[in-house]
């Protein structure tokens, strides 16, 4: 018989629980739709194992309702801490109120939520998607001297990273009148779609394509393949920048095909568990812990590539 929580005792505020009891953490993950996502899952899981935590992992298969179910059952199982990677920003009030009533601290990872009462969660550990978009745009402006015809490959329609990365990027473009997004299409964050959409762009506007901005690396990698097949030198004739910084992107930069990538670090495991320990020890933590995002170019790609795990 599985024992989700040996004692019915509730963890209260700052008191450390008896040493005999394993720390139990419920982690509600969005799903496994991208390399980035699975890297994040792996990081949290392996860090949990390393620290001997009883980690309950719930894959929501991309559905908020499943996440809420997961949270309610975590609450029913009386876990010590809940870690939530929210699939969307809205709609968390009710269930987080329940968690608060049960005195279970909630730590958000990789994306913020919109709630009227900030005390519903303890802290947010994440990257800033809008900032990523800004960084990409600034770099591109510098690289092309503020003049470029840009083709954008968007993430899934309506998804928060897609919306924010577009927003940040466009914000910066305002400053550069000669940088224009000529076409922008959703490629669902996937390599196959990225390739397909890029092919369509090439067929219609071959001569005008100067730069490509992809909301994630997978789509950029697909686009590179399409450009290669069309005999248009990616990385030289066409400047490509994308976001995430997965291993494949570094390989492409080393090969001179991808121009730059903005890292959005998924390896949040250590940071998450450090924060959990702080919270349980009663230390105060900031409301927003930004994980370090960094821009990598072809020049420094080769040094970093060996350290890439995902």
């Amino acid at each position, binding site marked *: 018989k599985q024992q989700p929580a040996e004692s019915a005792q509730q963890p209260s505020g700052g008191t450390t629980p008896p040493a005999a009891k394993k720390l139990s953490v419920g982690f509600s993950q969005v799903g496994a739709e991208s390399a980035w996502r699975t890297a994040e899952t792996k990081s949290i899981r392996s860090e949990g194992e390393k620290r001997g935590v009883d980690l309950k992992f719930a894959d929501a298969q991309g559905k908020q309702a499943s996440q809420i179910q997961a949270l309610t059952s975590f609450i*029913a199982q009386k876990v010590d801490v809940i870690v939530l990677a929210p699939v969307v920003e809205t709609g968390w009030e009710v269930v987080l109120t329940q968690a608060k009533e049960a005195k279970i601290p909630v730590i958000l990872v990789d994306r913020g939520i919109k709630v009227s009462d900030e005390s519903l969660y303890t802290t947010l550990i994440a990257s800033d998607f809008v900032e990523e978009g800004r960084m990409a745009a600034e770099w591109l402006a510098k690289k092309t001297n503020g003049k470029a015809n840009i083709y954008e490959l968007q993430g899934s329609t309506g998804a928060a990273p897609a919306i924010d990365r577009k927003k940040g990027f466009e914000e910066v473009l305002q400053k550069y009148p000669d940088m224009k997004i000529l076409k922008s299409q959703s490629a669902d964050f996937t390599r196959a779609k990225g390739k397909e959409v890029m092919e369509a762009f090439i067929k219609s506007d071959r001569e005008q394509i100067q730069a490509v901005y992809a909301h994630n690396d997978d789509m950029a990698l697909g686009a590179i393949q399409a450009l290669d097949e069309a005999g248009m030198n990616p990385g030289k004739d066409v400047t490509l920048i994308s976001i995430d910084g997965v291993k494949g992107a570094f390989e492409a930069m080393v090969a001179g095909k991808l121009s730059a990538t903005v890292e959005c670090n998924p390896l949040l495991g250590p940071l998450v568990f450090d924060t959990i320990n702080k919270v349980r020890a009663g230390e105060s933590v900031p409301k927003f812990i930004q994980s370090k995002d960094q821009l990598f170019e072809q020049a420094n790609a080769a040094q970093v590539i060996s350290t890439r795990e995902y």
Partner: protein
Amino acid sequence: MSFLRKHITVLAGLLAYIVLYAIAAARYDGFLSLPVFVNFLSNNAVLGIVAVGMTFVILSGGIDLSVGAVMSFSSVLIGFLIMDYQWNVFAAIGASLVCGTALGAVMGAIIHKTGIKPFIVTLAGMFFVRGLAFIIHLESIAISDPKHTAIAILRLGPLPVTALLFLTFVAVAWYVAVFTPFGRNVYALGGGEEASVLMGLPVQHTRIAVYAVSGFCASFAGAALTFYLSSGSHLEGVGMELDAIATVVIGGTLLAGGVGSVFGTLIGVLMLGLILTSITTYEGMMSSGLTRVAIGALLLAFVMLQKLLTRRIAGAGRAT
């Protein structure tokens, strides 16, 4: 015919559900408690309300793939009207119900008038409505409105408002299916369209009404979703049509139409909820892949068990 024989699939489903619930209760602590069961009801209420509408469609021999999209659309519309236009909650819900019902009725009319298969019409409907929802508002909308919140936290005894809505829908739908001429016409239509025409039943009205009902249920589910999530969401409806169809069919309703019941759907919804929750949350440390494999396997096990029980009960019934 005995009660047993007549309701055999539903009873077998219920029995199979109890067996699986018992296994889960033996395996996980605290599973066998009222709050956990209530959680099943409220967590699956949105799907359940959609599935109730879908039951009528499938009983009539049709199918409705647009429900998930209509559900999201209606939740987004409600959020949009409340937040961007400061509409009253009830007015916003009313508007979304009108839209959902009208969308359903239009699809029903297209199906009836042109003879295009429901699968295609409602698939097109799904694309259309999803596009429409994005046009209204690209992002999901958080709803913070005192009246809305007041409703969202309503409870009747242990039952939260979404669970309450779900049970009400089941009860009303059961009544409509069994005691009203409309309900019986739906069964007749599914049992034989040509025969229904020749028997002089109002086939056109019935068909249009069936899709309108489904649209109504889907948009009501959208309203329930806003209470459940306090937001209008694009994401929740994706793939919901398949879940809804699955719950209806594992509830014993024949996809060919004419045979089935609303209670079967209730069991189907609870069953799917049980499988998903126990696998994804109680079973704990598993990979996403294994989660899916386990969900599929359990679903199959349930269907097989139900088949087996049906045969057993039928055999026993005939012998006596």
